[in-house]
C-alpha cells in the first residue's frame, strides 16, 4: 500500500506491506527496512527497526497522525493515492487563509486586533487565560484580519476559531 506523507513541509512516498503479523516491510523514498511494530498501551507503539528499540505514541487526526517520540512532537499528513487525487481537486479552489484557533479551552482576556487590520507573522491577536496563566495567541501568517470570531470575556473550547487572517 502506498502512502504520501508530509512532515515539516517535505513530501515522502512510502510503501508498506505486511510480512508477518506485526512485522512490515516499509520503503521510505525507496529505502527499504523491516519494522517490527507492536501496539502496547492504548496509543503507544513499540518499534524495533534494525535492532534499535524505540517507542512512538500515535494519535490519529483528520488526514494524518500526530505522534511523540522521545518527548518530541511530530505532525504528519498521510494520504493514500485515491484520497490524494480527491484532496487536490478540493483544495484547488481554496486560498492561503489562516484560521487561528484556540489550542486549549479558556477564556478570552483581550482581543488585540480588529477586522481589516494588517497583521504580521508572530503578532499577538488574542490573549487567552487558561490554568491561571495568560497566553498570547500569535498570528502564524502575514495578512489582513477578515474576522474576529470571539469577544472579551467569552469562554472558548479547544479548536474554536478565534480570528481569521487572509
Amino acid at each position: 500500500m502506498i502512502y504520501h506523507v508530509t512532515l515539516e513541509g517535505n513530501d515522502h512516498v512510502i510503501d508498506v506491506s505486511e510480512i508477518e503479523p506485526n512485522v512490515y516491510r516499509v520503503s521510505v523514498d525507496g529505502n527499504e527496512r523491516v519494522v517490527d511494530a507492536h501496539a502496547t498501551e492504548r496509543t503507544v507503539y513499540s518499534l524495533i527497526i534494525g535492532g534499535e528499540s524505540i517507542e512512538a505514541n500515535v494519535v490519529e487526526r483528520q488526514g494524518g497522525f500526530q505522534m511523540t517520540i522521545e518527548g518530541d512532537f511530530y505532525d504528519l499528513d498521510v494520504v493514500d493515492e485515491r484520497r490524494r487525487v480527491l484532496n487536490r481537486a478540493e483544495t484547488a479552489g481554496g486560498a492561503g487563509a489562516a484560521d487561528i484557533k484556540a489550542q486549549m479551552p479558556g477564556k478570552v482576556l483581550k482581543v488585540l486586533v480588529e477586522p481589516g487590520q494588517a497583521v504580521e507573522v508572530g503578532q499577538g491577536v488574542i490573549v487567552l487565560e487558561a490554568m491561571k496563566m495568560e497566553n498570547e495567541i500569535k498570528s502564524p501568517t502575514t495578512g489582513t484580519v477578515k474576522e474576529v470570531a470571539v469577544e472579551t470575556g467569552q469562554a472558548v473550547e479547544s479548536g474554536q476559531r478565534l480570528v481569521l487572517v487572509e
Partner: protein
Amino acid sequence: MFKKILVANRGESAVRVLRACREMEIPGVAIYSDPDRSNLHVRYADEAYRVGPAPARDSYLRMDTILEIAKKCGADAIHPGYGFLSENPEFARLCATSGVVFIGPSPEAIRSMGDKVEARKLMEAAGVSVVPGVTSELDDEAAIKEIKRIGLPVMVKAAAGGGGKGMRLVTEESQIASALRGARSEAQSAFGNPAIYIERALQRARHIEVQVLGDKHGNLIHVGERDCSIQRRHQKVIEECPAPGLSDDLRKRIHAEGVKAAKAVDYEGAGTVEFLLDQSGEFYFLEMNTRIQVEHAITERTTGIDLVKAQIRIAAGEPLWIKQEDVVLRGVALECRIYAEDPFNNFMPSPGVITVFREPGGAGVRLDSGVYDGFKVPMEYDPMVAKLIAHGGNREEAIERCTRALREFTIKGIRTSIPFHLRVMKNPTFIKGDVDTTFIEREFLSKGLSEERTHDEVALVTACVAAFRRDQAKALELASGRNGGEDSPWKIAGRQAALRRI
C-alpha cells in the same frame, strides 16, 4: 492525636497530606469542586464532600463551607496543604474560634510574614539582613525618590505579595512610572491591596531557603537548606537539596539566620525562610513561607524526616522528637515540577485527557502526583501534574537518576514540561552547579527553545504502519459483510462509550 483530618486542598497537594494521614491511621477527608469529582485526592480519601463549583473563590477558598463540612463530618483538624488557604491568617483564626485545629503556624505568624513590609521590619528588628530597600508603604512620589536614593536596578514589589505576582524589575529610569503602575494594578487584582515597596535588585543572585520545624514548646530547629534558583517568571521549576557549592561556614550562617528569622515570630510547624545569596556571598532575607512547600520532598529525601507527619504531630501538641544534631543530610535530591504545558510553544498550558501515564520507578526515584491514566487535567487550576524527586549518593548521581527517570516518565494526551527538564539536566552550566535565578532566561529562553526532532524516519515509518493497520482493519470489516462506511465516527464513538460506561 487527631480523630479525623480534613484536607482543604486538591490534587497532588491533597494526596500528599492524605498519604501522611493514612500512615498515621487518621481518617482523611477530601473536599472537591465540581470539576474535581474524579480527582485522585477524592478517591484517596476515606470521606469526600463537595465544596462548590469550579472557581476557587466559590470552592477551595470558601472558609465558611469548609468549616461547615469539617463540623458535619467530625474532623477535629484541618490541613491546608500549599496554596489556597494555607497562608490565610483569617482562616487560621476562624479554625481556632470554631474549635478545629489549623495544622500550621499561629494566625499572628502568618499575618506578620504575609505582609512583606511588616516582615521586613520584623526581620530588621531581629537582626536578620534584609535586601536594602524601603520598609514602608510609599506613594508614587516618595517611591521615585527612594528608587533614586537606592540606585538602579530595583525591584518594585507588592506589599501583600508572593508567588511572583505584583513584581517589576526596573533597570532604567524611564521604566519607573510604568513599573509602579503595573505592580500596583497587579497587586490590587491579585491581593486586593495596591501597596508596594522597593528593594534593590540583586544581580544574578541565588535563591536559597532554609526549612525550619518549630513546636508549641519553644523548640525550633532547621532541617537543612534548598537551592531554588531555577525559576521561570519567578516560579520555581527545579529545586535541589542541599544547595550545591556552599562553603560549610556559609551554610551554617544561612541556617542560623533562618532559625533566627523563624524564632522572631515564635514559629510553630514547618516553614521556610527564603534568602537571596548574591555573587559576593552576602545573603538577605527575602520572605518566609508559613506553610509546607511544594519542594519539601527533597528535604524529606535527604534528611529522612517526613515533614507533613511532623506538621501533624506538632499541631497535636507533641514536643519536637529530633534535636538539631540529629538532622544529618545524606546525598543530593532534585525535584522537577512537571507541568501540563508545552515548553516548545512558549510554555502554553496544555489541559486535556491523559491517555498514557507510565511512571518512573527504580532506585532513588519518588513520584508525587494527583493524576492517573485517563484523568482529565482541568483548565481551571494550577497546571502542575506531578513532582519527580530523584536522589543520588552525590550530585552527579542525582542528575543521572533524574535524567533516567525523566526519560522513563511517559505522559501522553497532553504536552508536559518533561522535555524541558531533560534539557536542564544536560546543561553544562547546571551540571557545574553554576545557577542563579536568571539561569532559565540566560540558558534557554534568550537562545530560543525548539524541539530536536531526530526521529523523522521513525515518525514516517510509524505513521504509515498505523495507516496501514487502520486500512487493513477497515478492509477486514468490509469483507466481513458489514458496511463500515455506514457507521459515522460518532456512532462508533457512542457505542464504545456505552460499552465503556458499564
